[in-house]
């Protein structure tokens, strides 16, 4: 049985994500920069995984595979960070509550190990979720 | 270009001294001419009033604080949106209309030239982008200088020549028109949350007083011989008792003479005089100081003024007088925006409702009307609303109505909740003067044009001048049955020409004209020290580089009209 933990997800910018979007969102570097989830050491421990393990992150709004790494901007136990981009946006709370602004920060998510499932490339992920064919 | 002949109208032109005589106005190649050929298009102005296009000397219509007002007041667009229509782009806004609407509204009232009254130099590109998008009217912008670090440092040591060289450089890089001063020293003090309320309050750190700044800037302005004089919003605006600071400020021009080739006679222009003509010690004993201020101005020919008429509307106040706006938000508790600008100035924005039910507002209304009614020379007193501070410029026709009709004034006074207070605290009830059409032409055309140094170009109908002409559907020979007819006639022109192009016909826009940006290009002697000081300030203190400061190129000033000044021989 795989272990599941519940965390509070926020998304936002990182400098690696910034460099990667300017370097090309079709590239693998973009996935390396933003197809990740930054977890606190304590949460990694609770989940019982090594860093660089792929995990499935699920919210009420969707589910996505990303690679788990240890945060360098912690400690922040209970808070998970996925850099802004299609991976985070597959699962964030899209409700604007009449403000026009989705709730990008503060989405309850569960994280479970998905070691053998692949993290998709950025464009690939969005095309797949939108049902758009790519060649 | 098409030729036009405007026939049989009653012409009012102070430049030629024409006082309502029936005359024809001929237009050819963008200029007023003596006569045109038989193929000229004839505009029948029988029973109508013909004047030069009006000249706006002080209005906030383009730039960062105006747009901040638009951004932060969506409510100003309620019921004031105009759809795409014929030649017109869509528009919106009552007190801070969008740029397109601004151009159309001015043109429809017969205004063909307007001056943006406060351009923060660092934001000159923004000002010019908006000017570009304001159709039809020729526009210039005054860079604000009364709190500029260069000016404070030079004038602390009374270095007039260096100040002048800096001004010449600044006008060039910002494509500016004149030297504007707002709350001298007080706005710099505001960067620390302080203010200068009299002309002798020292400016923190800079060791200079407002009096030294004002006097020095007049001297620098005259050293260069710029088309316009130093244009001032003095210290202590809007407070009971401020008229004394106003008189102190005016006295700084005493004995100073002008030196220019543009026909300008004043050395100081006092703007929105209404806001600076308050007596009393608090809002309860608040009263008019219009008599004291106009008495002084009447006696001193080297000063011109504009009025700043309160129009009794909901509006948006905005000024480079940062501490005043902070004070105002404390009074009315409406939302406050502020922008302090590095090394140069600041600005504040606060909405304001001039309610006829509030005695102070009604007294302000009365003071604004007393001033032109007490001024002897219409060539030295110009109608403004300090748009949008005392009211939107679109209310000019209503202000004209109040000035031209005692009946209209009485009706308004009777409508005030605190009528008695208005009558006891001002002398508006005893003024029976009615401004004539001729005086109106002085106060809105020939006068401001002369003060701006544009008297050879606009504000009149003399052959050789720009063919800026407004035709109003009102017969000055007939008694006016209903004062509202004045307001109606001045709201929508029968015809307007801008530089010879018909831009308005029957109150509708028929052409977007060939809008120009007016600026003053001053040639000065090489001044190595000022050059070095400028480059040092950019390296050390500005947040942009010197090479990224200038408003340059087609995008910002697509159609420049440079007024040249040669100050190399001084």
């Amino acid at each position, binding site marked *: 049985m795989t272990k599941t933990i519940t965390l509070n997800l*926020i998304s936002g910018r990182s400098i690696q994500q910034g460099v990667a979007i300017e370097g090309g969102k079709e590239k693998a570097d973009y996935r390396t920069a933003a197809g990740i989830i930054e977890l606190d050491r304590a949460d990694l421990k609770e989940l019982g995984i090594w860093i660089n393990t792929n995990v499935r992150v699920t919210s009420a709004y969707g589910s996505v595979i990303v690679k788990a790494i240890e945060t360098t*901007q912690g400690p922040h136990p209970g808070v998970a960070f996925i850099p802004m981009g299609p991976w985070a946006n597959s699962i964030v709370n899209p409700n604007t509550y009449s403000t026009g602004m989705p709730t990008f920060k503060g989405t309850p998510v569960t994280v479970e190990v998905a070691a053998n499932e692949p993290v998709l490339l950025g464009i690939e992920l969005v095309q797949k979720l939108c049902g758009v064919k790519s060649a | 270009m098409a030729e036009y002949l405007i026939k049989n109208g009653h012409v009012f032109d102070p430049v030629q001294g024409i006082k309502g005589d029936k005359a024809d106005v001929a237009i050819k190649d963008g200029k007023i001419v003596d006569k045109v050929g038989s193929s000229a298009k004839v505009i029948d102005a029988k029973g109508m009033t013909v004047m030069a296009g009006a000249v706006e000397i002080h209005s906030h219509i383009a730039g960062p604080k105006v747009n901040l007002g638009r951004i932060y007041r969506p409510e100003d*667009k309620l019921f004031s949106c105009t759809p795409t229509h014929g030649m017109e782009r869509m*528009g919106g806004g009552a007190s801070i209309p969008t740029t397109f609407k601004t151009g159309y509204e001015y043109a429809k009232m017969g205004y063909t030239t307007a001056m943006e009254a406060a351009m923060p130099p660092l934001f000159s*590109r923004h000002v010019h982008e908006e000017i570009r998008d304001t159709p039809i009217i020729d526009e210039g912008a005054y860079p604000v200088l009364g709190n500029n670090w260069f000016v404070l440092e030079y004038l602390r040591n009374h270095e007039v020549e260096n100040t002048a060289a800096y001004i010449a450089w600044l006008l060039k890089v910002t494509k500016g028109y004149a030297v504007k001063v707002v709350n001298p020293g007080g706005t710099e003090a505001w960067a620390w949350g302080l203010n200068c309320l009299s002309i002798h309050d020292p400016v923190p750190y800079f060791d200079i007083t407002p009096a030294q700044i004002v006097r020095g800037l007049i001297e620098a302005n005259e050293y260069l011989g710029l088309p316009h004089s130093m244009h001032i919003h003095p210290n202590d605006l809007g407070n009971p008792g401020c008229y004394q600071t106003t008189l102190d400020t005016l006295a700084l021009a005493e004995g100073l003479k002008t030196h220019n080739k543009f026909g300008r006679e004043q050395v100081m222009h006092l703007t929105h005089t209404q806001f600076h003509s308050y007596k009393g010690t608090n809002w309860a004993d608040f009263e008019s100081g219009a008599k004291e201020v106009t008495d002084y101005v009447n006696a001193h020919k080297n000063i011109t003024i504009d009025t700043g008429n309160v129009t009794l509307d909901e509006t948006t106040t905005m000024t480079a007088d940062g501490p005043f706006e902070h004070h105002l938000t404390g009074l009315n508790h409406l939302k406050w925006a502020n922008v302090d600008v590095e090394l140069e100035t600041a600005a504040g924005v606060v909405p304001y409702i001039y309610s006829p039910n509030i005695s102070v507002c009604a007294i302000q209304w009365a003071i604004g009307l007393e001033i032109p009614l007490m001024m002897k020379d219409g060539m030295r007193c110009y109608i403004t609303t300090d748009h949008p501070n005392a009211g939107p410029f679109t209310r000019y026709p209503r202000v004209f109505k109040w000035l031209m009709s005692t009946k209209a004034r009485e009706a308004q006074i009777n409508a005030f909740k605190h009528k008695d207070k208005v009558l006891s605290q001002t002398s508006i009830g005893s003024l029976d003067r009615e401004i004539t059409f001729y005086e109106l032409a002085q106060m809105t055309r020939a006068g401001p044009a002369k003060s701006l140094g544009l008297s050879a170009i606009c504000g009149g109908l003399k052959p050789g001048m720009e063919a800026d002409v407004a035709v109003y559907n009102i017969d000055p020979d007939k008694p006016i049955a209903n004062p509202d007819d004045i307001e109606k006639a001045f709201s929508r022109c029968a015809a307007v020409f801008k530089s010879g192009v018909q831009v308005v016909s029957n109150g509708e826009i028929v052409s977007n004209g060939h809008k120009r940006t007016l600026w003053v290009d001053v040639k000065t002697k090489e001044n190595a020290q000022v050059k070095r000081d400028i480059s040092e300030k950019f390296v050390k203190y500005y947040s942009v580089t010197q090479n990224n400061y200038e408003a340059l190129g087609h995008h910002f000033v697509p159609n420049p009209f440079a007024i040249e000044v040669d100050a190399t021989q001084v």
Partner: protein
Amino acid sequence: MTKTITDVICPFCGTLCDDVEVIVSDDGKKLLEVNNACVIGTEKFLHSQAKDRVTRPRMHQEDGSWKEVSYDEAVEYTAQMLAKARKPLMYGWSSTNCEAQSVGNEIAELSRACCDNTAAVCHGTTLIALQDEGLPSCTLGEVKNRADRVIFWGCNPAHAHPRHMSRYSIFPRGFFTGKGQMSRKLIVVDPRTTDTAKMADIHLQVEQGRDYELLNALRVALRGEWLPDEVAGISAEKIREAADILKSGRFGIIFFGMGVTQSISKNHNIDEAIALTKDLNEHTKFSIMPMRGHYNVTGSGEVFAWQFGFPYAVDLTRGFARYNPGDTSSIDLLTRGEIDAMFTIGSDPGAHFPISAVKPIANLPSVCIDPHLTPTSGVSKLHVPVAFNGVETGGNCYRMDNVPIDCRKVVEPPEGMLTDEQFLTKVRDRLKELKGVA
């Protein structure tokens, strides 16, 4: 031989650094080296030189492949799409210049579109708060020359605005701040110990989503009123200490970012931050400034405002401009399924909108104008690559403090490529023909 171009403006973030140096080949066609820019800016300049760059418009085919088309065909598709649509959304505008935005607004007016910029997912809620409360602010040079109290609230400039701290906010020595960093006290409020927080004198590690409470507690502390032992995870003692630091300064500034604009409470967080700033002005001088993201999102808001009267979320479908965030804002329009054509320029909603707002785009007639390949171009019917604004063409832009800075062209775009403005001008002219407007 090479040429060095100085005073170059970096078209990445709202910091809009204007001191970049770019070294180009003698013929002005190759960009060789970038100095002074941050790592992101450098990448932006250099990526324009990528060999695999798409240089011609492409139509997405049924089988998922792309077919190259001419710019004229792309103009025709775009103009036809906008002419036919009843409620097109023209979104983006934040990574292009004001000239292009202006032409875009003409197109929007002709096609009665909804127009919006990336404030939709960035500082839109800041604009709402500004409309509620006003905003006491200043230019960045004021911060450099005067500020001795600096707060970063819910923003992480070390990652998102890398040169902000060295140019304006923490390190520079200004006129009244001759000791640079030593002249300033730095407070960072963030639920994570970000790389910015690590530099702070005080890090208030607020509980995520509790910013409103903490801001309110600071206002209480300023008034010396009673506080509970802990608010939003911060002890009362620490809150009082922070309040004392703030009011004892001579000139303070609050910079804030997505941490407050995107967390629950949204614009109300910012209302409270502005109210705190106003309160502080009773004690000293204080300003507040949003850390705008895209290098010209601010400019887009300015151009919208002077032309239409509103800074974002503008709906022109009725023939005049309406504004009602939550109703006329992009995310809501898309998720409600009200849009019948999607026009994207200078931004990437495919990557940065929640996926539920991206899915509708894939089913609509759609154009994506962007020099890059992006998730948006990946789900659009037509992708129109253009010259890089700020690298291959100039144009005016507005920094996060609304200061306008004219970008510079440093190299030629690849042969035959159009700029945003050139492409939009062609679309406008064609649309006028289709609509029968002179």
